[in-house]
């Protein structure tokens, strides 16, 4: 059994639409080591949410995994049917969403929702599952669990609902939790609480995370590794601090430069010119080349899969050194 709880190998997800085949996820390979958090960053249309859904097996009807493997603990999930996936989803893998109000059942008491997982997947008795639910509720920081057990989701605040969702996700002691922008809708102070909670839980129980977001600093706070997606492809991967401080792909550099960072007030924010390409007919060669400051002739024609670099990093850029230099110049400026 490898050290990776989850591995994506050359994953391809295609969506059939009236206008053509959308290559939503295109050749994505990713590893999630046991007990660690991997951030998946990109803007809208990058394919990050679709990747998560493919892993969990909840793609929309028109979408399909056309090739590649999703290895959970070494076992490929792609060929599995829904029934078998159900078997695996609860106990080994769970997900938390951006909007807790739509993910929680509004007419079921919160305690029961948390207890449901162990009852169904782990065969716990009602009382044992309820005990576990109470235990989880205090673990995620919900005050007065005995009383709150019987409350309905609408009686909780946004941050508390998110904690409930985390409790549900933890209920069967999974090996990996998939997080789809879990803090985007929360206030800053509550987001801070939830991020610290997730970090603590990771450390205590050794569960791995795949954390999808568009917010770079948030990723820095929770994850050890970072993968950047653009137009359905992975363009850079590596240790989170290294990637953010020394980006080796122009898109990553662009993201870092355009996001207002509290600590470093730039003279002028540098937006990335242009807009994301169509996923039905993406540009030839490197998909980012039309918007790239460092683009050269070969970028227009050569395909750019992710290439490994020394030190555990990977990039899809053919001329990553230029980008690295630009980032260094940025840092040197006062």
């Amino acid at each position, binding site marked *: 059994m490898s050290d990776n709880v989850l591995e994506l190998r050359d994953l391809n997800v295609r969506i059939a639409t009236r206008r053509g085949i959308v290559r939503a996820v295109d050749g994505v390979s990713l590893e999630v080591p046991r007990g660690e958090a991997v951030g998946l960053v990109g803007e809208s249309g990058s394919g990050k949410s679709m990747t998560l859904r493919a892993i969990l097996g909840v793609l929309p009807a028109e979408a399909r995994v056309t090739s590649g493997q999703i290895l959970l603990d070494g076992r490929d999930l792609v060929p599995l049917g829904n029934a078998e996936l159900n078997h695996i989803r609860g106990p080994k893998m769970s997900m938390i969403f951006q909007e807790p109000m739509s993910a929680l059942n509004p007419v079921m008491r919160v305690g029961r929702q948390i207890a449901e997982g162990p009852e169904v997947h782990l065969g716990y008795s009602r009382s044992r599952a309820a005990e576990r639910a109470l235990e989880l509720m205090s673990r995620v920081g919900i005050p007065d669990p005995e009383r709150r057990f019987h409350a309905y989701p609408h009686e909780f605040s946004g941050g508390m609902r998110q904690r409930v969702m985390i409790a549900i996700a933890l209920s069967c002691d999974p090996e990996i939790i998939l997080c789809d922008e879990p803090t985007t809708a929360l206030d800053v102070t509550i987001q801070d609480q939830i991020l610290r909670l997730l970090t603590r839980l990771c450390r205590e129980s050794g569960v791995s995370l795949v954390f999808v977001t568009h917010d770079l600093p948030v990723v820095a706070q929770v994850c050890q590794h970072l993968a950047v997606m653009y137009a359905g492809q992975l363009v850079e991967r590596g240790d989170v601090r290294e990637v953010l401080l020394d980006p080796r792909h122009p898109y990553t550099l662009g993201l870092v430069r*355009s996001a207002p960072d*509290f600590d470093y007030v730039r003279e002028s*924010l540098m937006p990335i010119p242009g807009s994301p390409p169509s996923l039905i007919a993406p540009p030839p060669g490197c998909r980012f080349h039309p918007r790239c400051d460092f683009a050269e002739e070969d970028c227009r024609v050569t395909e750019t899969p992710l290439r490994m670099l020394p030190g555990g990093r990977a990039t899809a850029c053919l001329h990553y050194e230029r980008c690295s230099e630009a980032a260094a110049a940025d840092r040197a400026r006062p």
Partner: protein
Amino acid sequence: MTRPVPPAERSEPDLPGIAAVPGAEVPSAPGEPLLAAHDIAVWFPYGSQLVARLRHEERLLRAVDGVDLEIARGEALALVGESGSGKSTLALALAGLRRADRGEVRFAGRALPARRRRADQRRIQMVFQDPYSSLNPRLTVGGMLRELLRAHSVVPKSRVAEFSRELLALVGLGEEALTAYPRQFSGGQRQRVAIARALALQPDVLVADEPVSALDVSVQATILNLLRDLRAELGLSLLLISHNLAVVRHLCDRVAVMYLGRIIEVAPAEQLFSTPRHPYTRGLLAAIPKLSQVADDTPAAVLGDPPSPLRIPSGCRFRTRCPIAQARCETEDPVLTATPGDPGHRVACHFAFTPLATEAAGERDQQDWP
């Protein structure tokens, strides 16, 4: 950057006609703020008021509960707070889109009545958060602009089309946009249209309510740069409402922090960020995720959940989450007071200038910000 720019000194922008503000009222006295709010309160009654009266209860959601605010000409003030703070409601009240239940709003020293005259209404224009619902889907961009320009006779009828083109150029859109419908634009472009619309009436104050929150990160930068450039070119005052302090730091001269309907601290931007004096402000700053942060699970900056605006705590409204709350905080509501020796920095906390606060701050300082 912090000094307001008097009209005479404003640099001439590329496009003549935009800068001239016909009928502009010069502030009555130098130093008089352009826009001032005094003791503004906005309440939302809920449930049966009859029952409330019978039971001697107060069924009021106090969204804004007594706020004083000033914006000088050419200044950029940020209104910062989390959900439930009342910042959006306050913005609507200042822009004349929501009636204040108490207090008054003054423009250039003159009190504005509850139902504003057209000439006053155009002085303060607003840009909204959601680019998808802030443009009428049935009107072309040209149609929207024309309607406003004609209603206020901003320019003579013959010049309307030309002026519209100038407005679009100001926000970086070409004249093809005039005949396009909102659905043909992306989020970032729509915000630009919204900004052009807000500028059409040549306002003195632009109120921007979370103008970039609904946009992708790389697009946010374009809009923020645009706002900054427009301020410089047109000498606009800007009231920016945002929950994102990084955005605020890029754009604003002064910051006011709101919590549950009150302003609890106001100071020049850099001062607020380097020496925050209210425990909530400190917590807010510490909670901001930063690129340089390390994953850790030490206790969060601000604990607990914000109280519901329906049941605001007695005394100091922050006391339920405050690390230095004392007995006095439960009974006495702190008033916004100036720091001794620094009138520009005001705080609403009983212990802001005491060792109690600075000690707590000291512990935090070490670990949390650069």
